[in-house]
């Protein structure tokens, strides 16, 4: 016995009912986006791994379906944004901005599967290149809410954040890029859960341990300020330790690195300060307008630029007028998303299903540096969002899906010789808009009629030699048992008319 080959874990077969529902949702969303000027594009599923590594800013991104084929590092896309950026660079650089794109298709992430979390799922989203920050942010936010409303998903929660607040704080601490990236990546964990916060604390303690660098030291120097005395001192120390160095360059590099490390140890105080700030920021999340007051106070207390906050206030003002009430909005300036390319607005849309299980339906934001990161010559304003289609389905009221379309008539050839004529009848029926099946079981008229009854098909079209000669069909009404002899040009209309009158 051959071994049964199982479906991969976290991957799903989409069967007709849910397939049709999903396609209906995709078509509706796509139509809405198209009416807003977003042109559909379809990049390949497979890209060079480098594309996603550049967009995420790191080589060892976990959860990628990445592999090597013929010495090329390839990757099944984990999301569309980087692909659409590449597509823009390949085809649209000379066109004037703004440009609007929409996309829909499968994405792949090697994560532990769970409720609402699949290894292959369908994303539908938009990217807008160019445009002014507030206007385009407002447009995509409004569009995301409008799209959900159109699907009759109304009780969702829009979580808004802005990377600018935290990155402004980090810049002022004069932390280097490496530390800044770390803090931004930990921000997501802090905003997700208490365990995440503990994890973040632990990470920082490991990387910036309390040690001989005086935590209260007020004077810290940057590497440029390191005196040449220090370098000479270290160089002679290394010589005396008889550590072998291939060349003076190597020795110099190690000395430079050693000083770099010492200098970084002195960053501990500032790093922990940043962690405190992230916590404070996270603690203030809430709904406008009250939360703006508290956030303004906090920014003032830390003497931070309030520009990101003003941007958010303007945004909230715009979308409140068009798409969403302010009770549905939660401001969380510590909101971090899984990827590191965001530069300004970040947002997520969450909703709970009937059982109270909360899922994230949509996520997006602004990434003004991404196009350059994936190979563009300059930074271009860009923003976008994506829906997880599978997560939308259970939230859409069941009665809003179109009812499944049943086969209206079964065409029963009397015998195999009547098959060509049966196929001709079927074609004419379809041209008239009927949904028909041909009975291919070659089991005669009686069995064919039984089959039609079993499949709850209302009409049977019996075709044999007589019918073919007279260019007609025998129409059998399976509900009433009535039989009619109709011309091939009129039977379809008869069925349509009768069904309409019921």
């Amino acid at each position, binding site marked *: 016995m051959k071994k049964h080959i199982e479906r991969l874990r976290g991957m799903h077969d989409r069967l007709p009912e849910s397939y049709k529902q999903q396609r209906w949702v995709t078509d509706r969303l796509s139509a809405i986006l198209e009416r807003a000027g977003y042109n559909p594009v379809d990049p390949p599923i497979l890209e060079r791994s480098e594309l996603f590594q550049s967009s995420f800013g790191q080589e060892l991104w976990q959860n990628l379906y990445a592999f090597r084929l013929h010495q090329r590092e390839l990757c099944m896309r984990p999301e569309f944004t980087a692909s659409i950026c590449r597509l823009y660079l390949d085809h649209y650089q000379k066109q004037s901005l703004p440009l609007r794109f929409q996309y829909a298709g499968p994405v792949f992430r090697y994560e*532990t599967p769970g409720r609402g979390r699949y290894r292959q799922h369908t994303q539908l989203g938009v990217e807008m290149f160019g445009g002014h920050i507030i206007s385009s942010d407002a447009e995509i936010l409004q569009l995301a809410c409008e799209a959900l409303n159109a699907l009759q998903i109304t009780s969702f929660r829009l979580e808004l954040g802005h990377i600018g607040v935290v990155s402004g704080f980090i810049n002022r601490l004069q932390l280097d890029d490496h530390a800044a990236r770390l803090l931004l990546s930990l921000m997501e964990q802090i905003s997700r859960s208490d365990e995440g916060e503990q994890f973040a604390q632990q990470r920082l303690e490991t*990387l910036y341990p309390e040690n001989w660098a005086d935590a209260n030291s007020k004077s810290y120097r940057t590497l440029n300020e390191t005196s040449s005395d220090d370098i000479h001192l270290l160089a002679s120390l290394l010589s005396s330790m008889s550590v*072998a160095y291939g060349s003076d360059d190597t020795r110099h590099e190690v000395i430079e690195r050693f000083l770099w*490390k010492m200098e970084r140890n002195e960053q501990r105080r500032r790093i922990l300060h940043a962690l405190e700030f992230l916590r404070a920021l996270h603690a203030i999340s809430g709904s406008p307008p009250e939360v703006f007051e508290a956030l303004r106070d906090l920014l003032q207390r830390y003497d931070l630029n309030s520009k990101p906050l003003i941007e958010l206030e303007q945004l909230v003002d715009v979308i409140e007028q068009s798409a969403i009430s302010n009770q549905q909005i939660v401001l969380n300036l510590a909101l971090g998303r899984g990827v590191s390319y965001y530069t300004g607005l970040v947002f997520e849309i969450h909703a709970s299903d009937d059982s109270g299980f909360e899922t994230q339906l949509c996520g997006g934001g602004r990434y003004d540096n991404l196009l350059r990161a994936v190979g563009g010559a300059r930074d271009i304003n860009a923003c976008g969002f994506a829906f997880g289609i599978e997560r939308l389905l259970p939230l859409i009221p069941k009665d809003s899906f179109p009812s499944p379309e049943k086969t209206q008539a079964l065409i029963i050839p009397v015998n195999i010789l009547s098959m060509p004529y049966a196929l001709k009848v079927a074609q004419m029926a379809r041209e008239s808009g009927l949904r028909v099946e041909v009975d291919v079981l070659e089991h005669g008229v009686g069995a064919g009629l039984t089959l039609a009854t079993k499949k709850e098909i209302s009409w049977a079209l019996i075709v044999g030699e007589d019918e073919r000669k007279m260019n007609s069909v025998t129409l059998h009404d399976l509900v009433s048992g009535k039989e009619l002899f109709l011309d091939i040009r009129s039977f379809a209309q008869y069925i349509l008319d009768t069904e309409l009158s019921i």
Partner: protein
Amino acid sequence: MNPSPVIRLALPGKGTLEASTLAFLSECGLKVNRNNPRQYLASVSSMPDLEVVFQRAADIPLLVQDGDATFGITGYDILAEFRGTADTEDNEEGDNEDILILDQDLGYGNCRLVVAVPENWIDISTCADLWHLTGYYLDHKKRGLRVATKYPALTGQFLRKHGITHCKIISPHGALEAAPLTETADLIVDLTETGTTLRENHLKLLEDGIVLRSQACLIGNTRLLRENQPALNMASIMLELIEARKQARNRSILTAHLETDTLEEMQRNCSFLTQRLNHLVSGLEYQVSHTEKEDIIKLCRYTISGVTNVGNSASDFLEIVSVLRSSGAKQINITPLTYRFEKEPSSVRALIKRLKRKQ
């Protein structure tokens, strides 16, 4: 009915694990008969229905996963790389549930997979230092670290765990130790037993740079074990023998025949010996049996016997011997223990439980 499929055990046929595996199995009473060392097939006389195939250790996980071999012995490092994770518990992902680890530590083939950096990197001694170094590289060299390893999956997992994501993993075919010297990589992740080779190549280990500790391990194909009762029976026998052998390893059985003049003296002697011996060696379980034959009034003969977990080193024994002598021992026998069966074979029970759970 199909004829019942051949039950195969795949053993490492090349490299360091070959000889030690054969020696280990022989100790377990599962001696492999191979007519000449170039043959790929062999048999085990105590298990006539088992066919032994010799393969490269690195190929054995795939053979077992595909069911071409029901059982296999390979290095845990090789298996972990094959599964793509260093986590010891059952792979929750369930993606590799075709392979079941029957015994993770057979007690030989010890080695460690470690992160090693040039010894002149005075700024680097921990993984946290390495994380800082990636920042330096991005800042000054505009690139990430390059790590050379033959274990890319385990290395990637380890580095990610330490947040070191700005690096490129390369897998050269040749000797890894040379990579930092020839500047094809900045550091390496490699197997080491003692660290000597690394030191000779001017490399040093990181304090917290152990990616994996590895020994030889016994694996089996989950599906075949579940569907094929004879295979499961064989697994039980092998596990039972291996467990009994592992329990007996480094244990010796010691018997001392003593004589005293009076019963009181014997009792005194015994309590003295209890104290001294417990002090001397841990894990000595012994009992006193009294031979009450002949002249009870005049002479007391008794025997002290027990199992000790002292190694095979003579100096350990000699101290015990002198204590026993001082208490009047006439003859002391020490024999290495061959098997030690517990009340219940716990590894067999665990296997059956896991087979059920995975269903």
